[in-house]
C-alpha cells in the first residue's frame, strides 16, 4: 500500500491545504498515477492467459526450449484439431452444458417451490425440515461424498441407469436442489410484501399461480443470482465428477481436461490448445453476462456480512 499512497497523498494535501496550484505543478503526469499500479498488476493477472494462448500455437520443439520462445516463429494452429482428435472436447463441452443447464433449471424450480413453502406456509414439520436443510448447508461435501457415491451407485443399478455412476445424470440429480438455493430464495421471498399475494388469493388464484405469476417475477434478481452461482459451481465442479464418472464420453470439461493432461503431460502445445478450448466458452459466457456474475458474487458477500 505504501507505494500507491505516495502519489495520492499529493492530491489530498492539495485539497486540504489549499495548495492546488503547487500540487498541480508537482504532478505533471499526463494520466492518473494509479495506472502505474494497475497496468503492471493487470499484466500479471492476464499473463497466464497470454502465455496459454502463445503456447497453444507453438510447435512442440519450440515449446521445449530454454530460454522460452516468446514469439513463436511459426504459428501452429494444427494443435487445435490435433487436440480435438485426441480427446472429444466437443463432447465434454456438450456434457458440461447439459449438466450445468440441467442443474440450474432443477434448482430454479425445486428451490423456488421449497423456498416459497418454507417462507409462506405453515405446515407440520416445517421447522424440523428447515433445521435439516440448514444442517446440510454447513457440512462440507467431503463428509457426504462417500455415501453419496454409494447411493448414486445403488440408484443406477436398481432404479434408473441414467442417474447412476458413469452417467451425467449422476452429476445433476444430487445437486438438483441445494440447501443454499432453498435458503437463499426463502430469505428473499420473506422480504417481498404480502399484499400482492393476498390480493391474488382473494381473486381466487391457486398457490402455484401466485408463486409463478406474482412472486417469481418479483424475485427475478434473486433467481438471476441463483442461476449465475449454480451455473459457475456446476461448470467448475471437479471432485464429484472425478468420483462418479470414468468413461470418457460422459466426462465434463474439467474432468476431461484433467484426463487429457494425464495422457499428454509433456505435450504442452497440445495441452494448451485443449485448455484454451475448455475455457473459452465459459470465458465468453462470463463476459456476456459479466454484470450478473459480478452482482451475484457481490451479493453473497453482502449477504454474508
Amino acid at each position, binding site marked *: 500500500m505504501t507505494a500507491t499512497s505516495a502519489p*495520492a497523498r499529493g492530491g489530498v494535501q492539495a485539497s486540504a491545504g489549499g495548495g492546488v496550484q503547487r500540487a498541480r505543478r508537482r504532478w505533471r503526469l499526463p494520466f492518473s498515477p494509479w495506472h502505474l499500479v*494497475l497496468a503492471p498488476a*493487470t499484466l500479471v493477472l492476464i499473463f497466464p492467459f497470454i502465455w496459454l494462448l502463445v503456447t497453444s500455437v507453438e510447435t512442440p520443439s519450440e515449446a521445449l526450449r530454454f530460454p522460452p520462445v516468446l514469439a513463436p516463429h511459426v504459428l501452429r494452429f494444427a494443435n487445435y484439431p490435433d487436440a480435438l482428435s485426441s480427446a472429444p472436447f466437443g463432447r465434454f463441452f456438450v456434457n458440461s452444458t447439459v449438466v450445468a443447464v440441467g442443474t440450474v433449471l432443477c434448482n430454479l424450480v425445486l428451490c423456488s417451490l421449497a423456498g416459497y413453502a418454507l417462507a409462506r406456509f405453515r405446515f407440520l414439520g416445517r421447522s424440523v425440515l428447515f433445521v435439516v436443510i440448514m444442517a446440510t448447508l454447513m457440512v*462440507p461435501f467431503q463428509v*457426504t461424498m*462417500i455415501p453419496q457415491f454409494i447411493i448414486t451407485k445403488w440408484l443406477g443399478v436398481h432404479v434408473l441407469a441414467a442417474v447412476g455412476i458413469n452417467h451425467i445424470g449422476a452429476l445433476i440429480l444430487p445437486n438438483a*436442489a441445494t440447501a443454499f438455493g432453498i435458503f437463499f430464495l426463502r430469505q428473499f421471498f420473506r422480504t417481498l410484501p404480502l399484499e400482492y399475494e393476498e390480493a391474488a388469493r382473494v381473486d381466487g388464484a391457486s398457490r402455484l399461480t401466485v408463486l409463478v405469476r406474482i412472486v417469481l417475477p418479483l424475485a427475478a434478481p434473486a433467481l438471476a443470482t441463483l442461476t449465475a452461482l449454480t451455473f459457475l459451481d456446476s461448470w467448475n465442479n471437479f471432485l464429484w465428477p472425478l468420483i462418479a464418472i470414468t468413461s470418457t464420453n460422459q466426462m465434463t470439461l474439467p474432468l476431461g481436461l484433467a484426463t487429457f493432461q494425464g495422457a499428454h503431460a509433456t505435450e504442452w502445445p497440445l495441452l494448451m490448445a485443449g485448455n484454451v478450448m475448455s475455457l473459452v466458452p465459459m*470465458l465468453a459466457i462470463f463476459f456476456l453476462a459479466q454484470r450478473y456474475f459480478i452482482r451475484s458474487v457481490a451479493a453473497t*458477500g*453482502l449477504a454474508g456480512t
Partner: protein
Amino acid sequence: MVASEQFTGWAFVTPGAVIIVLFGAVPIVWSALMSFQRSNLLTPSTPFAGLKNYRQMVHDPIVVQAIQHTLIYTALFVPGTMIVGLFLAVAMNRKIRFISLYRTAAYATMAISTISEAIVFIWLFDPSYGIVNYLLSLIGVPPQQFLNSPSQALYVIVVMTIWGWTGFAVVIYLAALQGVPQVLLEAAAIDGAGPWRTFRRVTLPLLSPASLFLAVWLTINALQLFDEVYLSTQGGPLNATTVLVYYLYNQAFQQFNFGYASAIAYFLFLVIIVITVIQFRVGRRLTYYRS
C-alpha cells in the same frame, strides 16, 4: 385454509426435500456411522470398530503431515488473497480511463476452472522450460524445481490459488468499497487526515464486515483444497503437498478404506467448525458494523 396449507406446503417442499435428505442428510448420518466401522468397498461386512479409525489417525504420520500442510497452506493463502484483493480493489475503486478493462482482467480469473488454472501454472512453473525460471534467470536466480521440490511445491500451489481467487476477492472488496460513504472520507480529509490514515481509520473499519466474510469463506475453501493438488502434484513430492482432502480422497477412492476416510472427513469438518467459530468470535470484536 390451514388444512390446505398442510397439503400444499408438503407438495411444494417434497421434491427439493427428497434431494436434500437423500444426498445431504442421510449421507451425513451414514458417514458418521461409517467412521466407526471397518468399512471398505471390497468386503460386504462392516464390523463395528469403535474409535479404531480415529485412533488410527493419531498414529498415521501422513495425517499429521496433511494437517500441517493444510494449515500452512491456509495461513498463507487466506491473508495473501485478501491483501491482493484489497490492494487491487482500492486501486480499481476510481473512475479513470481503462478502469473497466482492469476490472475485467481481475474478474476473468473467476471464470477459469481450477483445472485450467492448474494446467497453466504447471506450465508457467515448469522446472525445465517454464517462463518463471526464465524470468528468474534474468535477475540472476538459478533455475528452481518448483512443483518437483518438496520444499517449494506447496508455495507454488499457494501462488496459483491466490491468482485463481483474486477476482472473487476484488469483487467482494469493490462492492464493499462502493458502500463507503464519500462524506466520511471527505470529513476525514478536512480534519487533516492523510490518505493513509483515512484508509486505516475510516475505510478499513468500514470494510471489516467484507473482510470477515472473505476470511471465513476463503478459509473454508482453503481447508478443502483438492483440485490443484490432484492435478499438479498428486500430493507429492514426498507427500509435501498432501493436504487433508487429498489424503481423504486417496483413502476413500484409491484405497477404498471408506471407514477411515469417513473419520478423516469428520475430523476435517471439526477443524472447519472450530476455525470458523474462532474467526467469528475474534472477527466480531474487530468488525465494525454501521447501524
